[in-house]
């Protein structure tokens, strides 16, 4: 197994300096990511869990190069992503993708599903409209959507359908690594299971590496091989399913696992 992504001593600090703080001569620094290091093996599925504000979203944004880290580095296949420019950056954009939490918000409300997907192909070099249409159709088949959704705008689609479009859009560029940020938590239970199955199948069929960001330990236990627990910008613990759910001695991990609202059917 080779590692696809390596994060080394990453720090992301946000300066909070409102007028009031300046008057008090205070300079508040929030350490959103505090000395985080880990690596991801090719083809694995990592669960990134923690409560809101623990830095898991900031971390995924840093990996996607949407925000600039304060210090530290992120290597994708041994290349430092901070140093990417021009075509090599464009290539990185093709290989690392994201699936968002809010299915509706991640789609431009003014574009139809077909336009959303076609645009990706257009930007990535498919100039012939007929070819793009064929590619869009095969994508829709892949994520289990019927072809008649192409003419509909997100507002006319259900949450589950929107999320499938979002997944299709990420798959359009044939990525190696997908970061799924709470990809199923905004959906209803019966739809959530469908989306989790889809992600699971896609991962196996396409050999994707996946980072699954979630606060839902149940989902992570089902989907991931390896779990990273974060709290206050730091990695608290990393381990396999058994380690985290059964053998952990870390108090924070334990409190998370114990708060998990499982179905207590054994009481019957």
């Amino acid at each position, binding site marked *: 197994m080779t590692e696809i992504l390596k994060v080394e001593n990453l720090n992301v600090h946000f300066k909070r300096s409102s007028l009031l703080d300046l008057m008090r001569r205070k300079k508040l620094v929030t350490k959103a990511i505090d000395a985080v290091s880990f690596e991801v093996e090719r083809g694995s599925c990592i669960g990134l869990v923690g*409560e809101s504000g623990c830095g898991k979203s900031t971390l995924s944004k840093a990996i996607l190069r949407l925000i600039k880290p304060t210090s530290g580095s992120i290597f994708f296949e041994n290349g430092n992503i901070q140093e990417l420019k021009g075509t090599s950056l464009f290539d990185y954009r093709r290989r690392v993708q994201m699936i968002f939490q809010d299915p509706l918000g991640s789609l431009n409300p003014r574009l139809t599903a077909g336009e959303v997907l076609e645009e990706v192909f257009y930007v990535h070099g498919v100039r012939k409209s007929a070819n793009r249409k064929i590619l869009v159709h095969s994508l829709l088949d892949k994520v289990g959507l019927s072809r008649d959704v192409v003419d509909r705008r997100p507002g006319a689609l259900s949450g589950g359908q929107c999320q499938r479009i979002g997944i299709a859009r990420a798959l359009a560029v044939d990525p190696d690594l997908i970061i799924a940020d709470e990809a199923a938590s905004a959906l209803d*239970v019966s739809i959530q299971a469908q989306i*989790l199955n889809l992600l699971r199948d896609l991962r196996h069929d396409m050999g994707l590496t996946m980072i699954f960001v979630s*606060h839902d330990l149940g989902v992570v236990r089902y*989907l991931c091989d390896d779990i990273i627990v974060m709290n206050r910008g730091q990695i608290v613990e990393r381990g396999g399913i058994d380690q985290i759910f059964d053998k952990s001695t870390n108090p924070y991990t334990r409190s998370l696992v114990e*708060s998990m609202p499982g*179905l207590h*059917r054994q009481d019957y």
Partner: protein
Amino acid sequence: MMSKLIIRDLTVEIVTPSGPIFPVEQFSLSVEPGEIVGLVGESGSGKTMAMRAVVGILPRSAHIASGEILLSDADNAFVPSSQQSHLRHNIAMIFQNPTSYLDPLMSVGKQVAEPLRLHQGLTRKEARTEAIELFRKVGIHDAERQFDVYPHHFSGGMKQRVLIAAALACNPKVLIADEPTTALDVTIQKQILELLCRLRDETGISIIFITHDLGVVSQLCDTVSVLYAARIVESASTIELLNAPLHPYSLGLIRSQPESAQRDRPLPSIPGQPPALNAMPSGCRFLPRCEFAIQACKQPSPPPLVQTSAVRSNACLRWRELQTLGLNYD
């Protein structure tokens, strides 16, 4: 002083230009004193709308088309729903997003004390003492100091505690909690659930807990009603429902919980999606997604909720067969 709440055949209607739609149909529920009842359903299943109807805060476009809401008073006599004020004074509601229900320009303590002054005629000082007492009750530490703090200093979990305190201010008999923990982290969720349990044990208040999370139901609720497409499809005690569901939808929901799934198999998911309110299938509403459907399920009107035992009711035509099939989790 405890009260029993009975909701009988409640139907809520919304008149739209393209005809009436019914977000809640023939909703019946009875809540014993001190009981915690779970209402489970997906978004749009009508669980919130039904409870809004009970509290009398339906959106302007919606109204109660039929049904009655009865709440017993101190003498154990039922007061009919025509006496709105009786219901309003004795049923309180808390919501999913506490931030939008707190006035950002008023200290949290005042927001709890104000209704006390208004409804119970307490003086400013009495109200303050009473509010601090309520804060203690809902587990806000250092209540006296926190009284003058403004909402933005509070975390989501603390705000929810404030809302619970405000809801308890007028000594309601029933508390309706509409997904109060959905926006919160799991550790905070656990604390709030424990708080609700403790309040029930201490005060004997009845709680109706709206959620989409069966895990929460299994931790908190005594009984549970499952809603699908505006109708209750199954009501049972929580233990019975989770272990031996008698409606294919309840079964599907339980099966599709990732917590209980085996990693090496696909999650047993329910295919398709819930129908829209203006495009309900005829017959059983779950029919298009149901693996147990037979010809008889296509009857013109949805199958009614029937009593299957003293404490269970079910709206599946085949519940008897499903029972003998001995549904389990694989």
